[in-house]
């Protein structure tokens, strides 16, 4: 129960920051892909930097989690075709909708018809991946 509430709260903060920083906005994403503003690059870059430094320090200092376990991170396996072809396809969707995974959920609150359509699309895409999974190169 405590875990659930904590996670919902963290999600709400994450969503709130993405909204107040305008990162869910289709026009903002096109502005990024046209290199017309530093906003999104600064946002993503500083997020990676802070995440990396704080996580590194926590692990070095041996900070334990709330449940007193050692904090571990695991790198995702490399999938030569998946990372490149899948990544490219994801990027194409990012530009079309002006949204990635979290902003698709934000759109439900912003313009619900478009948000629901985009989310149903994303779930359909994931189902397609599940169906084709075995036939796709790793």
């Amino acid at each position, binding site marked *: 129960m405590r875990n659930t509430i904590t996670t919902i709260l963290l999600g709400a903060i994450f969503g709130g920051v993405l909204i107040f920083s305008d990162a869910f906005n289709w026009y903002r994403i096109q502005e990024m892909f046209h290199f017309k503003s530093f906003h999104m690059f600064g946002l993503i870059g500083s997020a990676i930097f802070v995440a990396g430094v704080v996580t590194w320090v926590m692990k070095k200092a041996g900070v334990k989690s709330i449940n007193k376990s050692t904090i571990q991170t695991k*790198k995702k396996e490399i999938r030569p075709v998946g990372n490149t072809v899948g990544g490219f396809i994801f990027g194409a969707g990012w530009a079309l909708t002006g949204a990635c995974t979290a902003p698709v959920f934000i759109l439900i609150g912003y313009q619900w018809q478009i948000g629901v359509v985009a989310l149903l699309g994303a779930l359909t895409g994931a189902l397609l991946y599940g169906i084709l999974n075995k036939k796709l190169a790793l």
Partner: protein
Amino acid sequence: MEVLPWYIAGPLIGAMVPLLLFTREKQLGLSSSYRYLGSFVLPKNSYFNYQRVNDAWQIQFVIGIVCAAIAIFQLDLFSPEPIEFNEGDVLNLPNVYSVQNWLVFAIGGVLIGFGARYAGGCTAGHCIMGNSILSVASIISTCMFFAGGLIVSHFVLPYLFE
């Protein structure tokens, strides 16, 4: 309300990574929520027949995002300011979120869902989490996210919104 500057918003987003590790021992990611939801639709499919309980936290995280979005927009706490592109640029279209553009969002959605699962992560899992621990898969994926986005934004959108 003014747009939150990147040097405040970025670190707050980055802080989610250590916070999730500390409170839930989970690595930030969002697109596994699609796999979780898919497991109810195609329970017998080998990809969706998995220990979904490990991904349940992402649904809780997503519920938080949706609740925040509904609250913020219902209370009118934020509305994006128009962004100006070059004169004559199709990107100056007045309201891309108009319902008549639904097909663009539907197709874009399919590409997001398929691409994120094929790449093994999205902007959260690869771009922020993976890059922050210097994961090679994430660095490759992030470059390809941008490659796909650049090409579509520059060369496909002009035809769609002509």
